[in-house]
């Protein structure tokens, strides 16, 4: 019996939810970035599962583009984190509140 697609979608949903929880509750900015990558991975899994379910290649192509965009975003985001750590001397997002009302 081949594994039903809904199992993969359930796993993707669980991972996405865990990514959201990590994003909301963690204080270190690098860990928040990693939660974003976790969410992107969960979405990739959903794409590949749907590509298999409908027997098409478009889902896999989209996974490529998601990976590429994630790479570009990680590069720029981590550069921003480096600049931030230089100026604020801390990696805690609560400290980045100069514009707070």
């Amino acid at each position, binding site marked *: 019996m*081949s*594994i039903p697609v809904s199992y993969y979608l359930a796993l993707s949903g669980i991972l996405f939810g*865990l990514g959201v929880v990590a994003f909301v509750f963690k204080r270190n900015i690098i860990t928040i970035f990693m939660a974003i990558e976790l969410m992107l991975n969960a979405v990739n899994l959903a794409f590949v599962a749907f590509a298999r379910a409908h027997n098409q290649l478009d889902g896999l192509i989209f996974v490529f583009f998601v990976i590429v965009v994630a790479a570009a975003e990680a590069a720029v985001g981590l550069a921003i984190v480096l600049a931030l750590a230089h100026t604020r001397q801390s990696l805690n997002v609560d400290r980045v509140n100069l514009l707070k009302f």
Partner: protein
Amino acid sequence: MIAPLIVFFACAILAVLGAILLIIVREPIHSALSLVVVMVSLAILYLLLGAPFVAAVQILVYAGAIMVLFVFVIMLLNAGEEERTDWSKIAKWIGLPLGFVLLLEIAHWLFHSEPGTAVANGVAAPPPASTFALSTALFRQYLLPFEATSILILIAILGALVLARKDQ
């Protein structure tokens, strides 16, 4: 016939465990390593889903380059232990149960919808997506997004260079 099922559950449990570890552990480097575990188990799941090229690209690019970048930045910034902040009471006592209810509802509708039951009823497995077919689609139908993402990567490289440079 149950071998794919065993592999699926092993990788699924590994992935969820990695994600939970990402939330729980205190050092960022341990979070990075558990995220690598998640990515590798997802790559095995892509292999199960008949997409070997995507699995290899996931390990090569995501686990082998992006996460190395994360580990580098954590090492460079000497990111120590996270500060412990208490979760607000609303989040703990109302948010988590509500989230769980939402998850149950999504699971219900997932398992009773069309794609799930169609494949579960024994539709024959499609052949694995070959590299040739993927690359043909990538360079013919999806040429514009391909070129656009190349320019995006170029912009990202330049942006990262400019942002990370110390002011002289």
